[in-house]
């Protein structure tokens, strides 16, 4: 049941933080490794709030 519920709601698969200014390779923020798997548990709901807020702002923008 949990699986079906999750499948319906969807998942955040990954978060790539910040911008990579380095013009030679792909830099990834590894600071969250300090917190281990707790980072996923804490940050996923938080980032979801920002993603949904972004959608709300987009919906609220008058079209035309």
């Amino acid at each position, binding site marked *: 049941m949990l699986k079906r519920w999750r499948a319906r709601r969807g998942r955040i698969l990954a978060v790539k933080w910040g911008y*990579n200014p*380095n013009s030679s390779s792909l*830099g990834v923020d590894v600071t969250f490794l300090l917190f281990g798997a707790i980072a996923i548990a804490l940050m996923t709901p938080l*980032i979801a709030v920002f993603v949904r807020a972004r959608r709300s702002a987009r919906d609220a923008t008058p079209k035309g």
Partner: protein
Amino acid sequence: MGVGLGTRWRAWRRARRARRTFGAPRGFRAERFGGIVQTETPRALVFVDRAYARRLGHDGGALWDGPEPAATDDGGNIISAHHLSAPLEAHLQLTNRCDAGCTGCYTGATPQGGPAEWGRDEWLRAVDALADRGVLHLALGGGESAVLPWLGDIVRHARARGLVPNLTTSGLTHVDELCELAPLFGQINVSLDGVGEIYARVRGFDGFARVDAAVQRLRASTPHVGVNTVVTRVNYDHLEDVFRYCRTRGLSEIELLRFKPSGRGAGVFAELTCSDAQHRGILPLALRLARRYRRRVRMDCSYTPMVAHHRPGARLMQWLAIYGCAGGDLLIGAKAHGKVSACSFAAPPAAGPDVVGLGDYWDRPEAFGAFRSWREAAEPCSSCEVHDLCRGGCRVVSAHVSGSLAAPDPECPRVIDWRAAHPASAPAPGEISTRRRLPVLAH
């Protein structure tokens, strides 16, 4: 002396105002697995599956016609199931002109630049082509692109097309012009391989005082300034000085780069590349310094084998989008004459396109050759639990040391251990790993 609160506040306001002039960057891009949402607060790319993207009101169009890559509870990597619909970022070497003459320059830049370099109009067309394809970020570099009188045109055009331009600079020249443009960049990093005398030992000339002055001026123009530090066996033991410097100057992040055998760097690679012990210790060191000096730390894609060595777990690595060789997939490079390459260190593929022709080339089966065929790896990569993230490590180091782009990264701790245990290099499925747990994660 640090940067005052008033200066920080003014820099932040200037950056926000400048970005608002051009509107928000592209907010969503569909992928086979779902899509990528871009948020500005916090600054992130969020990879979501199809159901999540639908809930946000997005439609994947033709990309979602096929079956969705199967997600698993144990962190199975569905993002790597297929190459992306476009690179996340394009690394544009706008010129190969640079007067600095650094000993290990990966592009072999010279004061004259390269042959047949593109000009303003060609790069503007390239930005259009990348925006049409769905590229999200640009990383502008060189050579030293600050010397180009039309750099501002490229940056403004990128913003207008919904791309986020970022910049790496030596900080040695044209600082006035850069300060004017600074608020338009998402992030500016200054190349700084050491503080004081160490800078001179790595770069081959004493430029630290000039770079320090440039850093302070840039930091007064935008809050988003950091440093790129190429880690060599010369500066490894002095990385703490760089972190301390960044805190003193109020810089937001430090990006650590592995030394690559490319350009002039190929000739001094054996001399400057870190030792195995240093490679094994780089992640704990970086995290310890990040914690001590309260700075964010980034590590480049070539360090993924050294990150995986500490077993942070495939799920956490995937969640943080820690990928090994991302060339020809998450990123592309473009040389100063416009030719596309898998990454900035790699040569353009034979019969490869220029940036404007990237769209036609991207989905071809032969596109980017060995950079896309990492799934066919031999041992010890094929039995590695994070191979679909690491992808065999840095192809450029492999090609230089082993003579083959497809060979496992010879500096990967797991490869070194496996080769020591298997002198005849026979495959050993189910080998016992000798990797250590990361100390900071164990507590």
